[in-house]
């Protein structure tokens, strides 16, 4: 086994602070460092002011800011906004150009990894390898809920990764193992004036008991409660199987440590890190686990820094004790 896992953070965790102007980009990097993280990814479509055509000046300033705080530039997190136009999806030529551009931006800003998305297509993914090698930038595809390892296109992607000498890989997002509503989703349901607290509790109880959504009929839910029941079930039907994870980590360039809300640093009832961390350790994976706090999609009042402290404390203990 190599040196073991590394803990990093996505600057996306600070979405609320960034959106409201409480933190600028440098402030996000500084805050991540203060919390204790030594590596960080950046979501280009969020953080890059001149996106999708950043100037060299902006990119070199970003590189210098990472250096200033001794922050490792882990990954330039690109998007493939295949639906960016309304009249048609992106053409293969456009997907290639966006990917090529992102590789160039990544390299200029000091990153040696680009994250892309499932829609890149197997043909274009494989065709990018020579350019990746030339630029010294690895290319990985994020596997995000509702995708999972058994979605047919992923079998093709894994075959391509196998013959890429490590230049092409994937970034599994732990949301694919999400099994129970997180605290902020439950809070949203409870605070909705259209729901009754006891009914939301009954839905959650049914989930814990392993009952199917069809078995909720006896609860006599109103329309709003049914809406939340549907969300709870559909978002938390784990797309991936935990037993698949260990064998696939040889392809992982990084892991997205998704989480939505941690009430403490002991456990996450939503994503089963107590099972995930021992699997990661056993696999010998020695890349980054990138903390990805996403509670800001639901509420803006949880303190993102505190959430990141709790996450690190939790996953590190689970890894060390495995």
């Amino acid at each position: 086994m190599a040196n073991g896992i590394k803990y990093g953070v996505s600057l996306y965790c600070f979405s609320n602070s960034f959106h409201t102007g409480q933190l600028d980009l440098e402030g996000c990097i500084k805050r991540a460092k203060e919390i204790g993280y030594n590596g960080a990814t950046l979501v280009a479509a969020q953080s890059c002011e001149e996106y999708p055509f950043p100037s060299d000046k902006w990119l070199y300033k970003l590189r210098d800011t990472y250096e200033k705080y001794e922050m490792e530039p882990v990954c330039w997190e690109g998007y493939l906004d295949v639906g960016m136009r309304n009249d048609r999806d992106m053409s293969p030529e456009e997907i290639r150009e966006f990917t090529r551009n992102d590789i160039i931006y990544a390299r200029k800003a000091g990153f040696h990894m680009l994250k892309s998305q499932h829609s890149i297509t197997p043909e274009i993914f494989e065709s990018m390898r020579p350019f990746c090698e030339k630029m010294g930038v690895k290319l990985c595809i994020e596997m995000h809920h509702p995708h999972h390892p058994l979605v047919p296109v992923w079998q093709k992607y894994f075959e391509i990764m196998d013959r890429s000498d490590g230049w092409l890989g994937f970034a599994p997002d732990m949301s694919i193992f999400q099994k129970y509503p997180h605290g902020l989703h439950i809070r949203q349901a409870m605070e909705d004036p259209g729901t009754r607290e006891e009914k939301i509790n009954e839905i959650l109880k049914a989930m814990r008991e392993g009952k199917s959504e069809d078995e909720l009929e006896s609860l006599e839910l109103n329309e709003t409660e049914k809406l939340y029941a549907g969300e709870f079930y559909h978002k938390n039907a784990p797309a991936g199987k935990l037993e698949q994870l260990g064998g696939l980590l040889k392809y992982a360039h990084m892991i997205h440590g998704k989480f939505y809300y941690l009430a403490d640093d002991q456990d996450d009832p939503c994503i089963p890190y107590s099972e995930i961390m021992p699997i990661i350790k056993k696999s010998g994976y020695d890349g980054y686990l990138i903390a990805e706090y996403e509670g800001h999609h639901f509420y803006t009042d949880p303190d993102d820094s505190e959430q990141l402290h709790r996450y690190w404390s939790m996953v590190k203990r689970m890894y060390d004790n495995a």
Partner: protein
Amino acid sequence: MDFAAFNKYMICDDDIEVNKVEDIVLGYEFKCKYPTYRGAYICNVLKFQVFVDGVEIPQEDLRFGVNGKFFLMSEIKDMYKEYWFTGSKAIMRVVDENGIAPGQHTVKMIMTHKIPYTGYFGNYLVLEGTCEKTLSVKE
């Protein structure tokens, strides 16, 4: 529901400003932000609806301003090269030669928008975000 928390940021707290040339009133405007964690190609906004004091403003009277340019509502759908950056304040201008009365007004905005990377199994997520605020007219 995902992506809902930033809807409250869609209408900015800045005052409504009367749009005029010297003393000639042309309309009024308020500021708005794209209500998610990232920026957007403005064509991904499928529809803007604006209500002032409960009355919907006709689409032909709205102008959307971002990156120093102004667009008709009918032009938005084609603007896939124009990027509305995260947290950046855009302008929603109402063309109305009567202007707007001094004091406070209720402004509501409904934005229907497509998340352009979500086509996991062929369907894009389309959201409808609503924000309502009471704004003052700048004196």
